[in-house]
């Protein structure tokens, strides 16, 4: 089954520093860390104390609300530190890796005979479950629920994000195993989106509804695809996964071992030699960042792409869901008459003395400056040009800001997560924090109605 999906509205943000198609192995990290900020809304309960030894694949904490959902260690070693923040909230769990790695091994899953419950139990105990995200609310899926469909996007339009066709090469076996397992947990379809002209390994995978997508960003965001293919109604549940996580799940099913290794794109104009590295989840970013070299001292390192990633220090760790690490210059400098002089070196969705429309294929070196101050919403019609979902973006944002639950529901908040508003946030003339507004709206809706 294959369908074409063409998205017209949107904006491709073309940046300097795309990764070359070469992959190196990152230097083995000394310390690995699980960053709890990666798991939104999770309350962790530690199962290992500071100073104790863990093996790779051994649970180190579980979800307080769903006890069987465990999070496992990416490596074997000693749990050296639990970093806590305000009100003793756990921020990071650090593990000093052993020289000799010891791995916990489960029995491989017999896919032909496994039942729904057996698949769930296997994914939970091996630590693969947290890769499954759910909508609405953008949380880790609850193993007690059944989604109406599962969506996977292997079409990448986010700026500088890892090229899925490249990193998934030769992973057909793992992908097929993961898809087969996922298929047992939903009565609906598993929708997979690939680029229109791509030679993605997914074109050979069975038991999926394949969609060939074309168009500018946000066509590659799974939220856009859900809205066009099978939108979420109130009360419905959809699961989403990232293709690289399918590989980890698939490998675990086939071998019984949790091997959280990924091919990560190190990109951005601050990186001297942008390319791919294989690294484990939780590895120190510095282990491969400085192998490529940086162009300047004053740069910002981002776990993820420039629109949705989270800021991380150079001595930080690779995030649980990230396939891209971006480094761009900080923009903490003033610009003389920056608001009225012609602009040639920045991207703009208008033509107000901004000339990015003259060279649609030019690649830009953007920094983190906001290019203006925060203002009330003034301009209208601007978001709609880059927002292909059948939702009124400005009105939904305002509903979230005034905390009107009825309006939030009716205008379609169930269908979106913050990343769907990353592009409207980018073009916003009033520099409003769209993703935060949506996140707060989702939290409120979850608390009041969830």
């Amino acid at each position, binding site marked *: 089954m294959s369908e074409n999906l063409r998205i017209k509205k949107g904006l491709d943000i073309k940046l300097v520093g795309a990764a070359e198609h070469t992959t190196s192995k990152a230097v083995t990290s000394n310390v690995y860390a699980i960053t709890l900020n990666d798991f939104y809304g999770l309350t962790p309960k530690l199962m290992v104390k500071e100073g104790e030894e863990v093996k790779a694949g051994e649970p180190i904490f579980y979800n307080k609300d769903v006890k069987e959902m465990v999070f496992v260690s990416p490596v074997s070693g000693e749990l050296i530190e639990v970093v806590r923040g305000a009100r003793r909230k756990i921020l990071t769990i650090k593990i000093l890796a052993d020289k000799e790695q010891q791995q916990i091994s489960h029995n491989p899953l017999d896919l032909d005979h496994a039942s729904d419950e057996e698949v769930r139990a296997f994914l939970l105990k091996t630590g693969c479950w947290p890769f499954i995200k759910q909508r609405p609310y953008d949380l880790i899926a609850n193993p007690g629920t059944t989604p109406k469909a599962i969506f996977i996007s292997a079409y990448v339009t986010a700026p500088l994000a890892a090229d899925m066709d490249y990193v998934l090469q030769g992973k057909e076996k793992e992908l097929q195993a993961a898809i087969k397992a996922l298929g047992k947990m939903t009565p609906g379809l598993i929708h997979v989106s690939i680029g229109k002209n791509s030679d993605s390994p997914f074109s050979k995978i069975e038991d999926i509804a394949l969609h060939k997508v074309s168009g500018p960003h946000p066509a590659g965001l799974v939220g856009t695809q859900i809205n066009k293919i099978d939108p979420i109604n109130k009360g419905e549940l959809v699961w989403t996964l990232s293709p690289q996580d399918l590989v980890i799940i698939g490998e675990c099913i086939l071998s019984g071992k949790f091997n959280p290794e990924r091919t990560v794109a190190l990109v951005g104009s601050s990186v001297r030699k942008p390319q791919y590295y294989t690294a484990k989840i939780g590895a120190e970013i510095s282990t491969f960042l400085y192998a490529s070299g940086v162009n300047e001292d004053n740069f910002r390192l981002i776990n993820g792409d420039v629109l949705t990633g989270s800021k991380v220090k150079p001595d930080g760790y690779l995030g649980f869901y990230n396939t891209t690490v971006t480094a761009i210059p900080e923009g903490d400098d003033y610009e003389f008459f920056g608001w009225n002089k012609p602009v040639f070196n920045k991207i703009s969705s*208008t033509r107000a003395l901004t000339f990015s429309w003259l060279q649609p294929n030019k690649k830009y070196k953007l920094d983190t400056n906001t290019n203006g101050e925060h203002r009330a919403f003034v301009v209208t019609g601007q978001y709609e040009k880059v927002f292909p979902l059948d939702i009124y973006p400005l009105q939904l944002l305002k509903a979230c800001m005034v905390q009107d639950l009825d309006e939030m529901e009716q*205008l379609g908040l169930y269908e979106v997560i913050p990343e769907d508003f990353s592009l409207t946030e*980018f073009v916003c003339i009033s520099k409003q924090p769209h993703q935060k507004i949506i996140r707060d709206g989702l939290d409120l809706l979850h608390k009041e109605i969830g």
Partner: protein
Amino acid sequence: MRDKRLTFKKRLHILKHHYRGKKMAPAFNAFHTFLFTPNDTTHSGGHVRAADDLKRTMNTVIMALIPILVFSFFNTGYQHYAAIDAASGVPRTLDLMGNFFTWENFWLGFTLVIPLVIVSYGVGLLVEFIFAVIKGHEVEEGYLVTGMLVPLIVPVDTPLWMLAVAVVFGVVIGKEVFGGTGMNILNPALTIRAFLFFAYPTWMSGDKVWVHGAVDRAGTADAISGETILGYLAQNNASEYSYSTSDMFFGFIPGSVGETSAFLCLLGGIFLIYSKIASWRIMVSAVIGALVMGLIFNGVVDAGIIGETSKFYGLMSFDFWKHLIVGGLAFGIVYMATDPVTGSQTNRGKWIYGFLIGFISVMIRVFNPAYPEGVFLAILLMNVFAPTIDHYVIRGNVKRRMKRLNNASVFTGPGEGKEEELKVETA
């Protein structure tokens, strides 16, 4: 030179930290951000932002207004001298280089219009600054455009104190009481215009105010005419004016300071549409609305329902398309109706909103007994209805979503579909 600027930048940076958290911070920041785009970096959500900000957006509109301002200098002078010539019995014929673009015209217009601009900006920004300091919010850029629009939509001889009072009223009641830029219901520039119209009607309407000097000279031997084309039409005196269609289109006619040239409004409109700042939907639909209403009136006259003796005959029989090139309609459509804050906010709503502005403008123009112009009243009226239009447009989207929900057999998991399980089960 370069070093000097760096120290200036640094000095301002130090001052910014000095003012941080203090009462005067918004006032200082307004000047600082005027000189330098701030050094703010992204700290939530996406890490990069597009180049445009509100200052740039507003600046683009001002750029579109500059040709109109310059043209108004010449036209103000020209209309004054032309009226004197006409009163002395030797009517002028327009000679573009010979008697229009002359230093004499420019200087007279300049000395009359610039004080209006200065008062408008001075008083308006002062009120904005005071409110920003009292309420502790940043000085927002909305008034940059309003301040330029106001002098262009008043008669040239409007006393400056009157303008100052109106500006204070417009900014305080029209905007600040609602929370400032982005929160207002009525277009502030038109609120100012409406205040002037209702508070000082003798200065805002009639057959004297539209040409400089006509009011002062009224009743003396040197009396000159200050009547607009619409004024002649309203009195069924269409034969008394001698303006050609091209005069009307290019704007060599009496009227408010900056509204006369439909040609420059057209250029400004094209520039604003091309730069993607203003909504082409509103402009196009407003033009259509005005044409439709004009056609209806022409049809009524053609059908013989309104006779030549009717007091509406002059305006109703006026060619429907000429409504677009006389009076303030073109200016209103391009610069006033497209105000994003007070206009419709949905794309479909913009079509309805614009159409009704054009339609009602021409209707008021014809039927208003006191004052043959209705653009600003029509836009203010539609400002009030814009949220209602949006409401119904958005209900359409909500209904579509509800329909989808009702058609979908909501899957609730293995527990079978009972009513209470319609809720999403989450942790």
